[in-house]
């Protein structure tokens, strides 16, 4: 088992003829992901790097009925691309694009929630994220596949490369990962820590969860409170940005301490208070999981 994606997951790539979309569609296929084709308006009916191309997500649904749409569309058009996949009722949408205007995401999230309120089950991962991977199953995103190893630790993170860092440690120690989900660095996004923690709690293969947060917002605190009330599995947490100055955006649109809220120190304290094992040194994430698993 794993969460959300596995070897049978059928994937289309929106923006498959662009530079990033093209490269990563190929890289995902090389990993063993079942990429069935892609969408680029105006290029329907052609073939790109061996992938069939459709004009719209609806056409792709008719042809292949995919489970996932992986989006590499530039920021100005990305919100529309996500809305297109929502309209076509793709169950899982993974948006890699960085730099989408936040008001666009406010609208997307509102329409996604409305669709789900009507009874659909559509999940959005991202935007501004590395994607999702179930090692030896499906890599749906931009992460380097080979650092992963199938195993028992679930990883959920707001960061990209910092996640790879944690995964690398888990792999080196032989623990491996069940599924890794990058929820993205934007302030308004799809799946949040809580949603992913709930999925890991119900996944028999996952024995512990690594949660990698960063400064800004209160999502980590809420997730820790959720873990305390609803989770039996241990959670190991790291918060990036202990040395970040207040009021400055640290790369990610959502990584900012504003009005004294969202500091790494406060988050770590809140997490500890809720029973999450907090790691101070990101080099020790893997080792800490190993110890926590030995104890439990």
């Amino acid at each position, binding site marked *: 088992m794993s969460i959300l994606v596995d070897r049978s997951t059928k994937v289309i790539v929106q923006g498959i003829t662009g530079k990033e979309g093209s490269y990563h569609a190929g890289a995902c296929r090389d990993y063993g992901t079942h990429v069935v084709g892609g969408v680029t308006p105006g290029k329907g009916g052609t073939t790109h790097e061996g992938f069939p191309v459709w004009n719209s997500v609806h056409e792709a649904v008719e042809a292949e009925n995919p489970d996932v749409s992986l989006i590499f569309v530039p920021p100005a058009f990305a919100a529309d691309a996500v809305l297109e996949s929502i309209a076509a009722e793709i169950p899982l949408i993974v948006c890699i694009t960085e730099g989408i*205007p936040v*008001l666009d995401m406010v609208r997307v999230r509102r*329409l996604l929630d409305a669709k789900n309120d009507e009874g659909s089950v559509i999940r959005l991962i991202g935007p501004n994220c590395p994607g999702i991977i179930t090692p030896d199953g499906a890599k749906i995103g931009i992460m380097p596949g080979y650092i992963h190893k199938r195993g028992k630790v679930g990883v959920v993170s707001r960061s990209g*490369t910092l996640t790879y860092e944690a995964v*690398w440690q888990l792999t080196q120690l032989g623990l491996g990962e069940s599924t890794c989900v990058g929820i993205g660095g934007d302030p308004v996004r799809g799946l949040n820590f809580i949603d992913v923690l709930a999925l890991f709690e119900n996944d028999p293969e996952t024995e512990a969860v690594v949660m990698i947060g960063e400064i800004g917002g209160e999502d980590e605190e809420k997730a820790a409170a959720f873990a305390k009330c609803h989770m039996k599995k241990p959670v190991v947490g790291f918060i990036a940005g202990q040395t970040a100055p207040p009021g400055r955006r640290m790369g990610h649109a959502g990584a900012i301490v504003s009005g004294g809220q969202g500091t790494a120190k406060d988050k770590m304290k809140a997490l500890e208070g809720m029973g999450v094992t907090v790691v101070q*040194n990101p080099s020790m994430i893997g080792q800490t999981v190993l110890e926590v698993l030995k104890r439990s």
Partner: protein
Amino acid sequence: MNIHEYQAKELFGQYQIPVPKGVMVDSVSEAEKAIKTHPLFQGANGQVFAVKAQIHAGGRGKAGGVKITKEISQIPEIVAGLLGKVLVTHQTGPEGRQVGKVWIEEGSRIEKEFYLGMVVDRNSRRVSLIASTEGGMEIEEVAQKHPERIFHLSIDPCEGYSAHIGRRLFYFLGLPAETQPSFVKLVGDLVRFFHEKDASMVEINPLVLTADKTLVALDAKVGFDDNAIYRQPITKVLRDLAEENPLEIEASKYNLNYVKLDGNIACMVNGAGLAMATMDVIALAGGSPANFLDVGGGASKDTVEQAFRLILSDPHVKGIFVNIFGGIVRCERIAGGIIAAAQDVKINVPLVVRLQGTNAAEGREMLRASGLDIEVAEELFEGAEKAVLAVKKGGK
């Protein structure tokens, strides 16, 4: 991206949001000219004027950046006292901000002060209106001491603004009945401004009820969503480079994400989260980070070279820690960039490079074989420790 009060007021004016009339000057001679020729001052002797230093930070009043006068003839002197002055407020940091522009506006007869603001609220995932009866105070302070005096109302993006939203704020604030139509319109205009201009934050603090029962935005603060700047050409005109760190301006030209800090170990990292974690690890290893620098996913040789030049133009930098975990960026490309850059740029401080990820072994081998003075590391903490040690030894 933030703008000045005078610019925000000009934009508000375009959206029919009531603001005091005023004039911006950036020299004493302009101030002298303005009081002679600008209609604002003609026949206005004895009236109150506010002379306000323009910097991108709150708390100007307490720092001595706002002066009130009834003597028009004194205005140039006040302007002279403000221009060039370094204001230190709770938002500027200890180094403060130098005043380069001054806004002179007509005084308002204040009966009561309120707070009206808008933000993108990450918790509700919607745009939120914030109103408070405690105008003129820091909203964070009010939130701590009197949370019941703040009212939050989020706007459903599918509904947009409707008069009932304005009325709820109106009744919360307890404004006099005759101001209801103008207040409801003002909030609507503010919401329209926020959405049309892709603002990320708007603050009117204080929003003033005058003695003759009109509403005026006495102060105005606006921040724009950096992600939306591409579709808001006006932000190009409004950007004041004097308010930004010169190194950060330089960085933005090369799509580098750079924030200057106070330490002496520079870092160059791919990815924002890892960049923050790298700063944290430098601190844990006993050092102090000189910057945040995310070279992003598409780092080319040029980008890496520019990143080196940028880092080295900070005179406090005594060592460099390059930490790359290869995902989109493959390590041999980074290694190639580092080697090419190190050959072109004179790197006169210790350089530690930690490569991990896609093709990391090849990348590390390229660095070792380059003949350049680069210390290579495999693990994150190991790299940070090497950098800290190299700096403690005093470098080359």
